[in-house]
């Protein structure tokens, strides 16, 4: 029998049944639930008289719609208010643990899952949200699903799937100083494209990945979906285990010891074969900035906006022209000459404590540039917020002219009041730069947290390494 990849192991561990054509029934260990993609699923249960198969496999929290200011007043928008109230009602009726809007454990679903130790190595994890890929950082098989599948998992604890192909992305060598997990993943997407991972599960490997903290690994796995792959994986090691020790939902005592023994097996065998391999040299990666309306439209900060006239493929060139037009940019403009008027630091990509520390280190002792209208810092969860405040980061941000907000998705997708206006240009630590993503007509440039803070103080994109004195 051939040597197994991590994905093979996770797949086989959860295989309930396989039909002749390969269609399989996969057991799901964990289910994260939020207000936007669940109401129709719960309604489906009610209509068919079905019950959740295993309510303790799920936790829920409102994150997409919640206000980040004046939360005590409740939600002003009546439509959003109904949706959040509906989540409360559904969790209550179906016996699912919910961290409600005023609970300190509330936050972005992909931040709170790991933070609570609810997501553990070797698990299958789903959520009605594409960034469920984040949890692959734990050595878990985690992927986003649609609402029909949310209902399917609630009712049956299983999903119908076919096995994916495997792609290993190795990032060899050491990252330069000032270069972060966000830059790694943007560089990978720039390399393989937003459809490069379609049909694959990606395992991230190599020295640069191994050297990342869990926060950094979550940033990388989070954006696996932007590379077109449903799931990203990173093998379990000491970093994983140290991160999980003592978390509220992680096992303790003898169970912990037994679990760790099992978890240490969640890695690919040395001679396992992947369907495809991609290698990147970590030392060659510089801080990245997207210039267009797809995450693959990305260049190093010291580069220029590319020129559609030098693109051979006609459909691609047309896409580039449309993107430049939407973004209000001219080909060949140096990235460092693009001014920004909004900055957003947060999201499930970069809303964890380490991200806030990195941004605060740049903001400390500096001031947000005069023409920057708004610079928001939105912690990924109530616990991240509390931790940051204990470290005094909130004060650093506020002193520098940033706004310090309550946790949630906020301007990552602008379903609440945090939105760009047409023509606004934002340096954002989120994961999608699609047209209208942060508000109709808004222009998004994706960057890492230190780069976002640097753009805020400089008023335009700037190589953060220049500020850090490297």
């Amino acid at each position, binding site marked *: 029998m051939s040597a197994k990849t991590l994905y093979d192991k996770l797949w086989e561990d959860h295989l*309930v*049944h396989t*039909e002749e*054509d390969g269609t399989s*029934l996969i*057991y799901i*260990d964990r289910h994260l639930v939020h207000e*936007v993609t669940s*109401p*129709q699923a719960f*309604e489906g249960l009610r209509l*068919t008289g079905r019950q959740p*198969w*295993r309510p*303790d496999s799920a936790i829920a929290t409102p994150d*997409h719609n919640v206000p980040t200011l004046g939360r005590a007043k409740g939600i002003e928008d009546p*439509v959003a208010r*109904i*949706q959040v109230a*509906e989540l409360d009602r559904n969790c209550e009726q179906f016996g699912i643990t919910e961290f409600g809007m005023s609970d300190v454990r509330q936050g972005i679903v992909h931040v709170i899952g790991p933070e609570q130790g609810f997501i*553990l190595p*070797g*698990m299958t994890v789903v959520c*009605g*949200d*594409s960034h469920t890929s984040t949890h692959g950082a734990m050595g878990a098989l985690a992927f*986003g*699903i*649609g*609402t*029909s*599948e949310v*209902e*399917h998992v609630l*009712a*049956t*604890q*299983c999903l*119908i799937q*076919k096995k994916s192909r495997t792609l290993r992305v190795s990032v060899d060598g050491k990252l330069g100083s000032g270069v972060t997990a966000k830059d790694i993943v943007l560089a990978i997407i720039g390399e393989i494209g*937003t*459809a490069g991972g*379609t049909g694959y599960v990606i395992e991230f490997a190599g020295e640069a990945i191994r050297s990342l903290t869990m926060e950094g690994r979550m940033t990388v796995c989070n954006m696996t979906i932007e590379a*077109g*792959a*449903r799931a990203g994986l990173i093998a379990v090691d000491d970093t994983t285990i140290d991160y999980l020790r003592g978390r509220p939902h*992680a096992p303790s005592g003898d169970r*912990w010891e037994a*679990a760790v023994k*099992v978890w240490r097996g969640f890695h690919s065998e040395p001679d396992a074969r992947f369907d495809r391999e991609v290698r990147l040299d970590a030392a060659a990666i510089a801080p990245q900035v997207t210039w267009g309306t*797809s995450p693959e439209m990305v260049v190093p900060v010291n580069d220029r906006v590319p020129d559609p006239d030098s693109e051979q493929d006609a*459909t*691609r060139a047309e*896409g580039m022209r449309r993107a430049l037009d939407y973004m209000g940019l001219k080909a060949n403009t140096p990235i460092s000459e693009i001014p920004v008027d909004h900055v957003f630091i947060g999201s499930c990509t970069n809303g964890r404590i380490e991200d806030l520390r990195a941004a605060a280190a740049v903001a400390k002792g500096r001031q947000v540039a005069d023409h920057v209208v708004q610079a928001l810092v939105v912690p990924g969860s109530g616990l991240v917020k509390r931790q940051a405040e204990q470290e005094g980061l909130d004060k650093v941000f506020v002193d520098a002219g940033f706004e310090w907000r309550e946790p949630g998705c906020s301007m990552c*997708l602008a379903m609440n009041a945090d939105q760009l206006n047409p023509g606004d240009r934002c340096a954002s630590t989120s994961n*999608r730069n*699609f047209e*209208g*993503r942060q508000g*109709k007509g808004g222009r998004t440039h994706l960057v890492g947290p230190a780069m976002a803070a640097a753009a805020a103080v400089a008023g335009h994109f700037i190589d953060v390494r220049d500020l850090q004195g490297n």
Partner: protein
Amino acid sequence: MDKFEKFTGVVVPLDRANVDTDAVIPKQFLKSIKRSGFGPNLFDEWRYLDQGQPDTDNSSRPLNKGFVLNDPRYRDGQILLTRDNFGCGSSREHAPWALADYGFKVIIAPSFADIFFNNCFKNGILPIVLESEYVDNLFRESDGETALELTVDLDAQTLTVAGGEKITFDVDPFRKHCLLEGLDDIGLTLEHSERIRAFEEKRRARAPWIFGE
């Protein structure tokens, strides 16, 4: 779910690659707790000149005349023709709900994003992957004075241009069966309840920390 029957419909050519689900149905409409009623807001930001809001009347909004859904040739189109990586981005099932609510039954593209592709089948929409060459041809043919019509026969796995050419396509046999019969996935899976329970007991024995105390 309704059974997927053979039909003939108008092809609507949306000549863009990487159309994401934010574009298919913008976020403000995701606040709904229903599955229906998204059709008038399909491609809202491209289709109208103003900004759409949930629970408002769309009939008097200013239309973007240049957008393909507003082209009189393609009125009542049921087949969407588009480019690579259609449906990328967010997993929102509101995207296929909006497409289905508008009246689309088939989407043809050289490639699809994975989650969206999957979501289509759950909502009676057939996503068809065709080689770029065929897609290019269909784009050319659908730009005539009158719209292009295609007959879609899922059982035979063919697309037929009125009065001529027949193109065959691939589809996963299980998904084909479910679409043709209008089957409910959950019902099918629950037929395996015994298996699931047995699996769960094994898993509990091997990894007890996954289950509540």
